[in-house]
């Protein structure tokens, strides 16, 4: 009896110890975004995770660090294996269309109106697919023209009066070009930035590269689009005011050229400012941003929207949503903007004192009030942007005389893809 009693007591103690421990077992949520590997963002996300875990001791956030170029591949491989990280920032439309993401309307609808009103309908539209919400917009990349003030002044130009249309831009470009330096770069490298910049030129001319329901490509069909493409690529081919080797030039090479003073202006998102200062700290305070020179009044610029989503295979969506909301808090949004150059997408942040105190940031925020979102809502978009459009740009740079034909071929190819979904 004594043995039995002892055994029972030990068993009861064990159950008593294990029971609550099991009940309080930590939920581990993986978090993968391409930005986690960016040096300027690292201190912020580490603070965010630490603060969240302190407030939610039963949830552990495990950041997945993936190089930007491998981000999508790794996510797709994991999603196919039903092992995708719970919290992700990916190409939302494609991922939603492929079934990799979980709609979050049920979680969103439970939130108070004060929280939901922090996002404009336009921003939320960029995170919807077939009427369902698949992510919460977190930060964006508004494209503006960034100038090196010293080089502008050295060329005898007035920084307070940047070019407003293409003719003035070309005039500036010629003044800013010399034997071993150029006004700007034309991008043809094989990443999304090539497409993004091309679209800014098209929007600035009132062009539409696609029809309204994204079933037809109109790069060559729309005269305004074609005119913009020819002018932009002509900066390298005809006017010789762009740096050499455009078919390999991309975001990285462009910012290196800019930070080295090899080019005087670049068309880029706000995050590039941090990259340029990182490459050359002496350039800090010597840059200014301006709206993109355009041919139509009130031309929109382009803005990328990065949304945080919950993957379809996530087993703890409630906890994932709690982290997403925490990360969207004003405090972290402002810290990301000021310290890491990630522009916030909450519309209630423009008047925050820290944002207003930064002239470059507040100018970008102002320019961003008239922006069109990227990517366009179509599942084939990622492939089209990264492959077909870039390929056409490269071909046109190599054979400028065939530009129209190349973009006509592109229209045929893209229209087929858009209808083949």
């Amino acid at each position, binding site marked *: 009896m004594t043995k039995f009693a002892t055994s029972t007591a030990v068993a009861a103690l064990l159950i008593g110890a294990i029971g609550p421990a099991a009940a309080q077992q930590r939920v581990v949520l993986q978090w993968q975004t391409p930005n986690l590997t960016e040096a300027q963002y690292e201190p912020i996300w580490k603070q965010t995770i630490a603060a969240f875990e302190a407030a939610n001791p039963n949830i552990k956030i495990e950041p997945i660090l993936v190089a930007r170029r491998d981000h999508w*591949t790794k996510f797709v491989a994991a999603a*196919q294996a039903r092992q995708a990280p719970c919290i992700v920032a990916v190409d939302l439309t494609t991922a939603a269309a492929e079934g*990799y993401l979980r709609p979050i309307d049920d979680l969103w609808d439970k939130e108070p109106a004060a929280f939901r009103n922090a996002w404009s309908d336009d921003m939320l539209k960029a995170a919807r697919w077939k009427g369902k919400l698949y992510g919460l917009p977190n930060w964006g990349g508004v494209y503006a023209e960034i100038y090196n003030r010293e080089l502008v002044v050295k060329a005898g130009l007035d920084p307070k009066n940047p070019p407003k249309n293409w003719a003035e831009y070309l005039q500036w470009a010629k003044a800013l070009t010399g034997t071993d330096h150029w006004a700007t770069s034309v991008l*043809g490298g094989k990443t999304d930035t090539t497409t993004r910049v091309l679209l800014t030129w098209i929007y600035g001319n009132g062009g539409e590269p696609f029809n309204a329901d994204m079933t037809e490509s109109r790069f060559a069909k729309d005269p305004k689009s074609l005119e913009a493409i020819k002018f932009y690529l002509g900066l390298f081919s005809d006017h010789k005011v762009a740096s050499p080797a455009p078919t390999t030039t991309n975001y990285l090479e462009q910012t290196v050229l800019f930070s080295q003073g090899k080019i005087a202006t670049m068309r880029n998102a706000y995050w590039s400012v941090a990259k340029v200062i990182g490459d050359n700290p002496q350039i800090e305070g010597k840059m200014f941003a301006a709206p993109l020179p355009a041919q139509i009044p009130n031309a929109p610029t382009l803005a990328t929207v990065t949304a945080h989503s919950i993957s379809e295979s996530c087993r703890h969506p409630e906890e994932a949503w709690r982290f997403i909301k925490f990360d969207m808090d004003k405090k972290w949004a402002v810290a990301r903007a000021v310290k890491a150059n990630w522009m916030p997408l909450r519309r209630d942040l423009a008047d925050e004192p820290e944002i207003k105190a930064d002239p470059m940031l507040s100018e970008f925020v102002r320019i961003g009030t008239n922006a069109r979102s990227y990517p366009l809502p179509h599942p*084939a978009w990622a492939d089209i942007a990264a492959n077909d459009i870039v390929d056409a740009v490269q071909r046109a740079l190599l054979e400028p005389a065939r530009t129209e034909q190349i973009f006509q071929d592109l229209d045929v190819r893209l229209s087929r893809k858009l209808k083949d979904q």
Partner: protein
Amino acid sequence: MTATTRPRARAWTGTGLARERWHGYLFLLPVLLFLAAVIVLPLAHAFWTSLHRIRGLRSTFVGLANYFRVLEDDAFWHALKVSLGFVSVSVTLHMLLGLALALALNEIRVARTALRVVFLTPWMVSAAVGATIWLWLLEPQFGVVNYLLRAADIIDRPVAWLGEPGPAFAAVTAVEVWRGVPFVMLLMLAGLQTIPVEQYEAADIDGASTWQRFRWITLPNLKYLIVVASTLDIINVVRHYDIIGIMTAGGPAGATEVLPALLYNTAFRANRFGEAAAIGVLLLAMVLVFSILYLRATRIGRSDGDA
């Protein structure tokens, strides 16, 4: 009852042999299971995938439609053409330079080990690291290659090595050659050291020239190795993605889009996994057919008496 019968010779037919065979298969079983898990099953799954139209997590059986779609696409034939060019130039240079280096290193007596290590370095560096190093060496504005050429007055403006179709193809091929030569060199060097010295001594007595020694002693002795090395090299190069993926991603304008690059882009850019699997199966079939034909043509695997 003294036994006068001779011990029976062990019979190699009948139940004894059957039992031994069975034991033999049992010993092979772990390896066969391992091969099935890592080769047969993935191959079967890839083939099964190629028969489906896959959209994310949804899948529909479409039979051979993906194959027809791939074969009707100009991109496939373009990639095949680029692959053939890339493989033939790379493998030819691997073999020629690898053999030449092996011959040189076999003769050198000073700092032999150090030189071998130096020449092996490109092979020891991972392909991704090597490609990234060359990506920046060949960078138009800041790359060392253009800097040196400009300093030597060979060029007067930056050359976009990876930005023009011809130079880009040449550049990725050169990097592939840089990385692949040490492997062939190592094989050839091992082969050279197995050639009996007496053969060369006899040739010296007969007054053979250096070329004659090479033509009639070295080459015949290395024949088997050359066939094996070139076959392995072809299989190795034809499936390469890393160098091209990092340096050009298939560009500019498709000039370096080999079949593995097309496969990657089809799967992970266009999200068409069924078609990508079909490209993979076609690539595998081509390599298999080529390897069989090549080995048959070079009579490898037959005994000397059969040759």
